[in-house]
């Protein structure tokens, strides 16, 4: 961060080469090539594989698994074009189907990238840890308390096994956020009194159902819009900003109240999730953070965080005002956090300095679920109750066939411990 942006502009043509010889590639000798498997070969899994081989030397993409052959083939073609010989996936190490992840884990890979839709993550992470693999896993890592407990249990095992785990909450690997939050933790704005975190934007892509396609296939391909696959957008997307709140607050909230609804994006092509949420999170010390997220086309967007302290304010990223002011100068990240997270993972694996973010991301993930449940149910949700809740949104079995879409949640009636399908209503005696 010593370079001024002007220096950066002058050297931007060689920026990538510049990074290659900087401190991020400190190891001189790569003892052995690390083999990486991809589980979930969509745009993000494919991007993560590129980021991994870009972020470190001595990496080979060795095996690939996806539920769908067309997704796997498209991913392979993209990677061949972008990373060339670092892609060494023989036909025999390409796997499709619901059990593709187990087959990838059995190919002798050292590291796996877990990037299937979030509802599948707990099973994939548990299997990867049991197989003794280091892990990069995209956020979110679960969609319900049952999944979170599975992640937390596997996280403990992964620490015992000295496995490295990095999660796709890439702000944790962004030098701007790291510096700003370090300053906040060092007292630059005094005691944090309150804050706001936002992810307000328009809608995202949807996958249109093809004739003859089963419910299961359509829901998984259109996974953003079903709670069992994505967790809803507060979990799938807003987790990034909620994670920043927990990072600044050095812990997770203990309760949440909130509201939300499905107001504009009501076509069944968009499943059953909400299109807006507003949640108040309360932390152990009584500090309250307001969280807001929206996916409605043509509305004002805001993706940011802001914190107020007794001695100043900060956006936790590039600006601190008050007693100890600070301003980051630049047009963008000097280091791409999406690459840096892989650099840090591989460095940790090779150095033996344990880096394991599984518990941290699980806690931010449960925080987001707590917000969702506060809005879905209309109730005050406590951390302890939610962590123990029986809620399990997954279908009873993973087969291509019929799968009804659960009704849109109804605050005041919907309960946390609801059946995954059929109805949301608790029968009253």
């Amino acid at each position, binding site marked *: 961060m010593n370079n001024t942006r002007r220096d950066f502009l002058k050297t931007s*043509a060689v*920026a990538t080469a510049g990074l290659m010889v900087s401190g991020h590639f400190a190891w001189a000798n790569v003892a052995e090539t690390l083999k990486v498997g991809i589980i979930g070969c969509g*745009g993000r899994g494919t*991007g993560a594989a590129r980021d991994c081989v870009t972020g470190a030397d001595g990496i080979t993409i060795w095996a690939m698994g996806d539920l769908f052959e067309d997704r796997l083939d498209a*991913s392979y073609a993209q990677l061949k074009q972008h990373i060339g010989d670092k892609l060494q996936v023989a036909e025999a190490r390409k796997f499709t189907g619901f059990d593709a992840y187990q087959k990838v884990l059995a190919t002798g890979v050292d590291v796996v990238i877990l990037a299937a839709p979030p509802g599948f993550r707990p099973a994939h992470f548990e299997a990867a840890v049991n197989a003794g693999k280091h892990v990069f896993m995209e956020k979110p890592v679960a969609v319900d308390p049952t999944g979170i407990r599975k992640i937390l249990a596997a996280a403990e095992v992964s620490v015992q096994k000295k496995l490295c785990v990095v999660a796709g909450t*890439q702000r944790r690997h962004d030098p701007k956020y790291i510096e700003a939050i370090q300053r906040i933790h060092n007292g630059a704005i005094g005691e944090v009194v309150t804050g706001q975190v936002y992810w307000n934007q328009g809608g*995202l892509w949807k996958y249109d159902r093809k004739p003859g396609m089963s419910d299961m296939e359509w829901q998984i391909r259109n996974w953003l819009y079903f709670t069992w696959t994505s967790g809803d957008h507060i979990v799938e997307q807003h987790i990034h900003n909620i994670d920043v709140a927990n990072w600044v607050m050095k812990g997770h909230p203990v309760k949440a109240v909130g509201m939300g609804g499905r107001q504009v994006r009501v076509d069944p092509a968009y499943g059953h999730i909400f299109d807006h949420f507003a949640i108040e999170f309360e932390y152990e010390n009584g500090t309250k953070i307001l969280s807001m997220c929206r996916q409605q086309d043509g509305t004002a967007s805001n*993706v940011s965080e802001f914190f107020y302290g007794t001695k100043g304010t900060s956006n936790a990223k590039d600006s601190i005002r008050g007693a100890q002011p600070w301003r980051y100068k630049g*047009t963008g990240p000097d280091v791409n956090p*999406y690459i840096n997270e892989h650099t840090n993972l591989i460095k940790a694996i090779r150095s033996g300095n344990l880096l394991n973010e599984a518990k941290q991301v699980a806690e931010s993930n449960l925080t987001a679920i707590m917000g969702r449940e506060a809005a879905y149910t209309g109730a005050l949700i406590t951390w302890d109750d939610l962590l123990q809740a029986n809620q399990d949104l997954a279908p009873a079995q993973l087969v291509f066939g019929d799968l009804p879409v659960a009704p849109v949640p109804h605050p005041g009636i919907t309960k946390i411990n609801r059946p995954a399908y059929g109805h949301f209503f608790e029968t009253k005696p």
Partner: protein
Amino acid sequence: MLQLGDQTVSRSLDKAMWISKTEVTWDLFDIFVYGLDTKSTSPSPEVAAVARPSKPYVLPGRVFGHLGFPASAMSYYHAGIFAKWLSAKTGKKFRLLTEPEWEYICIKGRKPTSVTTEEGWVWENSDDKLHKVATKPENELGLVDVLGNVGEWVQSDAEIPFTKGGHFLEDAANVSCTAKWLQTPDWNMTDPQLPKSRWWLSDASYVGLRIAMEE
């Protein structure tokens, strides 16, 4: 990447043309991006033939404000398709300015010196934010924010597309009518997908456009 052009060339327009007074704002750009023009009426075949952008995962510029603010973070390809759509909608010929045209509208009535903070939104006065268009004085042609706020795509055959006019995160000293910014990988550094979006530049909140119309 910042490059400086020749400041001694005299510039003129070949013919009369209409040039948007402001940088294109979200008020107009949203209609294209979100297909708001097709919600209640069927588009003409010409309009229907124009591709629409993908839904952006995040628009880096939009934390600053929306209606009345310059549209930003669209790719050069996207800016060109937008002009094509606007032409199909109106039956008139809209396009980006060429570099000589852009330099003409910038230099007219003004010395080829760096921008002042009275003239435009730059690093020294922007507070790290894009500002509503037309909150700085008009230039001699009645145009606003030619220098500063968003850098503006111009039409060219160059291999690497570029913007003119500098932007809100650029030092005033670098922002002049002759300077141009060639797109670099960091404009789209943090798009996490592969392939990266052809429509949106994940990190370029400082890139926008102004349009011209020929009679």
